[in-house]
């Protein structure tokens, strides 16, 4: 490692040398994807090809010339701290220093950064990385670009590292099991313009704000890029997190927040790495993928046989990618296949077949065992005749004779599985009970798995729901077959999370079964054959000239308006329950701005709500309905008047009223003229508006004229009225 330091980019560049390069390493993913394992050990300490994940991250940070790393720990902070204290990272003398920052009430990456800001240790640009990242890229170019941009534009606060990775057309996920991301990037400046990681699969269209193209002549839209979750941030990022205390998630809140916010004008840029490796262990599928990448040496030099990682034992690489630590006891008849790692002091019995798997230290594997595509951590005992396929087995697990683990099984620490038990596919078995379901909703996704409060409550609530001794059953219908864990310790089978089996198979260690793929394919084909809904969006123009400005359907606007009307109605309903009138006005105004509506639309929508309200009270004849309506109008007249500043808006109200009468609620139809007169009397509608409405309708179809006819007398009276008014004025 001493050699490595001389190659630091900082050595060449005097400017970089002055400011030590800092990094913030989040030793907590603020997610629950690795439960139940993470209930007992923090994610960053989980072994990835027999070395803790955090070692890969730290080793990479050191290799790119980072001087100071601040490890933020939250869940199991003691474990992380004691690991780091005893590791090579803090012991070794040198420039590379690792310090820990601890907090117990952070529930998100946002909180973590706010805590780091409080500590005031970051002095300049820093690398923000999570402790489960494996990479071997060189950061020199990205850092240089970042700094150059910062010189020109102080608003360029962040550079995101991305990598080419095309998601599967069928499953819409990358090989790391992440959902596809849609990004829009300026092809010249590489500025990030749009970021969406939760793509709604039911929507066929992606909507991009038209303003994006006003400012940029061209943008390139990608869904073939993978977010490496390695960011080069400037100091301003911490300030942004402090200013926006509601930013929690780095991408969903922070990145999207910055992209939407045009007041601060902060910009995010991307840097695409071409041939080097960067990936983050985010779920079991990426654990599987990245492990295999490491075994297949994509992450060189961070591979098992190079002494960067782990306990420094000399691991030997045989042909076909078989790695063996010293002291492996292997039966002659055992068959070790390609891309397999055997840890130190592991014993493999007769006729055992191991392929594509990683076996930890001190494991005892019996005779006639078949292990394929699995990850067996340290000190695991596997007795004779077991079959493991695409399973993850944590430390200290004991599998008795003849246990069969179906694809995607996770067995947490120290579980014992009794003889001849078949553990069904995607099961998660732990000694600890599953927390109750209610904490798995969106808000609490950031809640860390191990913050004390949640833990204790969940322990209490779950005890009686899914606790199973010896004979282990399941509380969830998702898992078929109830295995008996004979003669072993207590254990719990965890029911699947909110995503159901769908999510499980997408993010499991096991590859997606062929049947599932076929299902997806069929749904895709039927989807393709389904009538195309977006055809309707662009009806025939019917215009004469090739360059004619055709009027495309106003369908969108209508839809927007309907949404807006619903919102206004909801606000109005809140007004009924006692919210102050001023607040209702305020809310409607903000709605108007956010939906980009006119004042007149507000008036129309509000009027609609009032009329609906009048229908709520029971009525048997039209006189009662009239009385109800009058009551409501008197009650809300003031509110409505607030929006009726000009004739246009009043006009809109009349049109709306007509709509209501002819469409949704015909009950009002016979009362049209009466209510109109009343609205005039209450000075909600001016005579000018009514007259202009009458005039407008004169030229309309007969069918359109029902209401003008009904109100004919009233209109006639109005037309004559002005003169009287004048006379009155003259008299006065």
């Amino acid at each position, binding site marked *: 490692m001493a050699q490595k330091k001389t190659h630091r980019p900082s050595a060449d560049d005097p400017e970089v040398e002055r400011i030590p390069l800092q990094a913030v390493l989040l030793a907590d993913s603020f997610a629950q994807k690795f439960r139940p394992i993470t209930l007992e050990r923090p994610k960053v300490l989980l072994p990835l090809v027999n070395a803790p994940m955090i070692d890969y991250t730290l080793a990479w940070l050191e290799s790119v010339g980072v001087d100071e790393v601040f490890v933020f720990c939250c869940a199991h902070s003691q474990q992380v701290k004691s690991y780091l204290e005893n590791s090579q990272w803090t012991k070794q003398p040198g420039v590379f220093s690792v310090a820990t920052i601890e907090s117990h009430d952070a529930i998100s990456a946002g909180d973590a950064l706010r805590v780091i800001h409080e500590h005031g240790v970051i002095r300049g640009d820093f690398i923000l990385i999570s402790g489960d990242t494996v990479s071997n890229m060189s950061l020199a170019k990205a850092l240089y670009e970042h700094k150059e941009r910062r010189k020109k534009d102080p608003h360029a606060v962040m550079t995101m590292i991305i990598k080419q990775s095309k998601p599967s057309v069928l499953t819409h996920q990358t090989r790391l099991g992440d959902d596809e991301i849609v990004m829009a990037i300026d092809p010249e400046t590489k500025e990030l313009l749009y970021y969406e990681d939760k793509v709604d699969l039911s929507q066929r269209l992606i909507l991009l704000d*038209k303003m994006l193209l006003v400012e940029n002549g061209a943008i390139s839209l990608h869904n073939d890029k993978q977010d490496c979750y390695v960011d080069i941030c400037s100091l301003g990022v911490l300030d942004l997190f402090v200013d926006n205390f509601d930013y929690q998630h780095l991408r969903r809140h922070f990145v999207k927040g910055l992209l939407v916010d045009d007041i601060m004008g902060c910009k995010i840029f991307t840097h695409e790495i071409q041939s080097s490796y960067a990936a983050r262990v985010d779920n079991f599928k990426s654990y599987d993928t990245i492990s295999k990448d490491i075994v297949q040496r994509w992450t060189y030099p961070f591979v098992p046989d190079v002494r960067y990682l782990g306990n420094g034992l000399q691991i030997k690489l045989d042909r076909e990618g078989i790695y063996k630590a010293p002291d492996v006891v292997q039966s002659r008849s055992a068959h070790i296949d390609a891309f397999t790692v055997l840890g130190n002091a592991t014993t493999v019995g007769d006729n055992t077949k191991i392929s594509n798997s990683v076996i930890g230290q001190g494991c005892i594997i019996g005779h006639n065992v078949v292990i394929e595509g699995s990850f067996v951590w340290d000190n695991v005992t596997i007795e004779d005749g077991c079959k493991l396929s695409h399973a993850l087995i944590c430390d200290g697990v004991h599998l008795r004779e003849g246990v069969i683990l179906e694809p995607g099984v996770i067995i947490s620490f120290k579980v014992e599985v009794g003889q001849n038990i078949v553990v069904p596919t995607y099961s998660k078995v732990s000694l600890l009970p599953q927390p109750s379901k209610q904490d798995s909703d969106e808000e609490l996704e950031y809640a860390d798995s191990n913050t004390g409060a949640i833990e204790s409550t969940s322990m209490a609530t779950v005890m009686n729901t899914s606790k199973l001794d010896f004979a282990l059953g399941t509380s969830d219908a998702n898992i078929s077959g109830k295995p008996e864990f004979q003669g072993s310790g207590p254990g719990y089978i965890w029911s699947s999370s909110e995503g159901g089996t769908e999510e499980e198979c997408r993010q499991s260690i096991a590859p997606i079964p062929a049947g599932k793929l076929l299902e997806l394919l069929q749904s895709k084909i039927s989807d393709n054959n389904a009538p195309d809904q977006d055809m309707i969006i662009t009806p025939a123009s019917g215009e004469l*000239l090739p360059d004619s400005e055709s009027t495309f359907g106003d369908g969108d606007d209508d839809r927007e308006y309907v949404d807006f009307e619903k919102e206004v109605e909801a606000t109005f309903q809140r007004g009924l329950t006692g919210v102050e009138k001023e607040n209702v006005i305020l809310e409607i105004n903000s709605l108007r701005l956010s939906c980009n509506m006119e004042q007149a639309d507000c008036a129309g929508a509000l009027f609609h709500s009032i009329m609906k309200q009048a229908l709520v009270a029971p009525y048997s004849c039209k006189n009662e309905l009239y009385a109800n309506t009058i009551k409501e109008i008197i009650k809300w007249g003031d509110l409505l008047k607030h929006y009726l500043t000009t004739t246009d808006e009043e006009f809109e109200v009349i049109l709306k009223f007509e709509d209501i009468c002819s469409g949704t609620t015909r009950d009002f139809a016979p009362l049209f003229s009466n209510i109109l007169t009343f609205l005039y009397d209450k000075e909600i509608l001016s005579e000018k508006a009514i007259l202009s409405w009458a005039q407008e309708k004169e030229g309309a179809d007969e069918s359109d004229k029902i209401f003008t006819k009904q109100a004919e007398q009233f209109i006639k009276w109005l037309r004559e009225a002005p003169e009287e008014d004048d006379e009155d004025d003259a008299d006065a």
Partner: protein
Amino acid sequence: MDFQVVVLAGGESKNLAPLVSKEIPKPLMPVANRPVLSYVLELLEANNLKDLIVVVKGKDAALQVGGWISGAYVDRLHVEVAAVPEETGTADALRAVAHHLTTKDILIVSGDLVSDVSPGVVAATHRRLGAVVTALFCNTPVSGPSDTGSSVKDKGRKPPRVNIVGLDQTRQYLLHVAAGAEVDKDIKIQKSLLRHKGQMEIRADLMDAHMYAIQRKILQEVLDKKEMFHSIKHDVFPYLVRTQLKSEVLDHEEPRNGLNGEAYSPNKLDPRIAILNNKTHKCCAYIANKSKYCSRLNSVQAFCDINRDVVGEAGHLSGYSFSAQNNIVHSSAELGSKTTVGPHCMLDGGSKLGDKCSVKRSVIGRHCRIGSNVKIVNSVVMNHVTVEDGCFIQGSVICNNVQIQERVVLKDCQVGEGYILTSGSEYKSESLSKR
């Protein structure tokens, strides 16, 4: 090349009022004193595309255009002139001539295109990529006077956005188009297409030049099936781009046994094969080099711009040879004493200028009578126009047989055929015509 070409020449375009009239329909509007249609026809001729159908709106206009073509191109091109009623969309116009179409691919060109982009290259791209439809895109021209003193305030402005185009990485395949009113709305991208290609470049700086190479069978099928399609640009073309992953136009070309479920059952296990069997077609784009000139005469502003460009920076299009002063003055034109004709100007045969006149960046037609002390800047003066002494004409278009009496000042005006401007009057940004 066995491409049939349909030239959609238009008729009495409303956008161009008052410049077009019964006497001069849109295809015959002068650009550097040649009918605009001649630019397209000569471009096609140069590319050996000689089998043409010219569709003109309105019977009278068709007669005029037909008369002109048969006179000018009698031995050079095989041209049929078809008349369609006014108020016909471009797709309807194609429907009207569909029975004349016989070749495998059709090239559809707008008659108002003034360009030096070779249609042959578009056709070749179409064939090479096996596309259903290939469209020509060029960089949006910056409209308005480019570098004259009056446009200082316009320097910073961006070219107008006319199209939004989505291209794949290689910039060959077209994934998204939005035109017309859609351009100003939020951009809607089909996810399936983005997934298919992984990456899409969305550009707003390209203009659809209205040159499409399209497979005849598919064109005819779309025209037959979709009766409500009226415009090529707004309906047919976007429809083909939109449905490229689930083609509705290739049905009958698929082998029939493919629809038989049993024949496919072995493939069902391998999803990739099944995806390949999915019906897709290709829509392509040819993007013209930035150095190429490409403009469409579809507005009064475009008319002025094109006239200025053709005698100016895109002078090679005009077909005239420029003098040492970088202008074109016909040998039979007469200039009075102390009269100057600046660079980028054209003065055609039989026109007379009095003394102390100044002509800058303008085109003057045949047999015009221009008095003394007249200034003409940035304008187009057509044929047989009389301009009396002391007039000042800037940024204007003067149609045939207009009389402009003494000391008239015109700024950014259009004067229709045969109009008479009384002496001393001043107009600014007005459109003047008899009716």
